[in-house]
């Protein structure tokens, strides 16, 4: 029980009258790599955005690192400190250098002194293999480099879990691999990860568990081997045949 990082129980969410999540239950243990896939509009983003409460769920319970998510700012701050998030469109701060992008959160949120924050930032920029870009602005980097900076920025908070929302979807094919490599090496180092992605190769080689969502429901989940070779649900089969066709 103690090594549970994220626990969602019967979570439901509505956008107005539209039900985006229906009774979703999911447990992520420490060190586990979970990949979520599913057709567009199935609620994948909505679900992981609920894990750091960028979106509020209306029913059910989400517990992150032992803290139950609700609207109170104090608990929320504690949760977000421990949950890193990487977005499809990077969302780097364009008016700050790469280094400052990475130093900002540790300095402002954790009160880490500047020299220590800088050391930390350089360490993680090294980790994603772009220390030489530290003094550039995000606008001067390629998409792949920007996404790796975004990963480093999250890592600087030394989070307990990293959420990835289609981190490679807005990248050119040749940049996808460099970001996937970074994520793979993170996984090797035992980072707890929840990834929304359509990169099935990544899912197959890295994931401990693959989750298939459709229309706001978790339709199927399982170890990648079972999931890809022997899907139980017709909708999963259909989705896999569509996505693996190319």
């Amino acid at each position, binding site marked *: 029980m103690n090594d549970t990082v994220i626990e969602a129980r019967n979570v439901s969410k509505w956008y107005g009258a539209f039900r985006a999540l229906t009774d979703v239950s999911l447990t992520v243990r420490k060190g586990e790599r979970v990949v979520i896939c599913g057709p567009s509009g199935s609620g994948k983003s909505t679900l992981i955005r609920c894990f*750091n409460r960028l979106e509020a769920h209306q029913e059910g319970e989400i517990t992150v690192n032992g803290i139950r998510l609700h609207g109170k700012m104090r608990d929320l701050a504690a949760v977000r400190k421990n949950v890193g998030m990487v*977005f499809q469109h990077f969302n780097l*701060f364009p008016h700050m250098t790469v280094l400052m992008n990475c130093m900002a959160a540790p300095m402002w949120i954790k009160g880490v002194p500047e020299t220590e924050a800088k050391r930390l930032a350089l360490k993680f920029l090294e980790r994603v293999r772009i220390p030489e870009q530290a003094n550039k602005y995000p606008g001067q980097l390629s998409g792949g480099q920007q996404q790796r900076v975004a990963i480093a920025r999250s890592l600087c908070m030394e989070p307990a879990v990293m959420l990835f929302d289609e981190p490679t979807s807005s990248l050119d094919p040749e940049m996808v691999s460099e970001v996937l490599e970074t994520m793979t090496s993170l996984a090797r180092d035992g980072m707890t990860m929840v990834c929304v992605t359509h990169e099935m190769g990544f899912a197959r080689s890295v994931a401990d568990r693959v989750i298939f969502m459709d229309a706001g429901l978790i339709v199927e989940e399982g170890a990648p081997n079972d999931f890809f070779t022997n899907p139980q649900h017709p909708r999963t089969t259909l989705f896999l045949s569509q996505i693996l066709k190319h």
Partner: protein
Amino acid sequence: MLYADTVESEVLVHKPLFIATVFVLVLSICFMVNLTGTTIGELMRPVIGDPLDSGLYGRFAVAFVIAIIFCLNIALIGFAHLKAQIAIVWLELLLLFLAFFAVFKLSLPFIWQNLPFLITQGVVTTLYISAISLVFASAIGIMAAIAKLSSNGFAYGIATFYTSFFRGLPLLMQIYLIYLGLPQLGIILNAVPSGILALSLCVGAYMTEIFRAGIQSIDRGQWEASRSLGFGFALTMRKIIMPQALPVIIPPMGNTFIGMLKDSSLVSVLGVWELTFLARTLGQATFHHMEMLIAAAIIYWILSVCLELIQSRIERYFARSKVR
């Protein structure tokens, strides 16, 4: 700068067709407006005789000369470098305006004699009223903008009522309302604080809209990234949103402040010794109206130019992360 194409275009002012068109245009305009009575007509006395008796021939000759000079001028400027072009155009327009002022046959000694007082008293008062109002207006603007974007019905209501009211009433009425109306409630303000209050509230209402537009222009991904890193509202606003919104905000803000600098002249109705008030009273007493008004006008202009320069400095500062 606009996004420049790499097409090499001919210099417009060196195209014969363009020059010819301009020539005909200037010629016909100058011909229609009889210019024989001006200095140029006087200078051409050797050619056309007494300018006032020269009839159609004189009119045409003057118009012809002006058109030639004009076309020669723009063609020559076309050869200069960009910076030189800008400088020459400014200089020439400035000279034209000075020539226009010269028409009034102003008494320069009177201006020189009153200028020191106009500056030490008038400009100083105008400047500090404007500067204080500027600070207050910005503070009001940013708070009201946040209120207008918030989901707090109370704050939203107050902010929208405020902007609607103070953008809707003429500034002059606001000044009177505050100076003459507030005492009815037992709040007695002197002329200068009343003026500052009215200006701040009025300009603050415009600033509200400028700040709101600036804040809204920032991609919501910036908010999401800040939230996900654990930044609170104030921190996100201060460190992430405002620094990115400012480059968008600065140009309309400069506009508003230059407008306010000149609107501060309305405070003169309360008898505050600022620039416009002094210019009027000094001029009236000695019937040198034009001298003082033109002096004041030029001072306002110089002050505005200073604000423009400050604005362009700030814009350049913010341009540094905009590299692509």
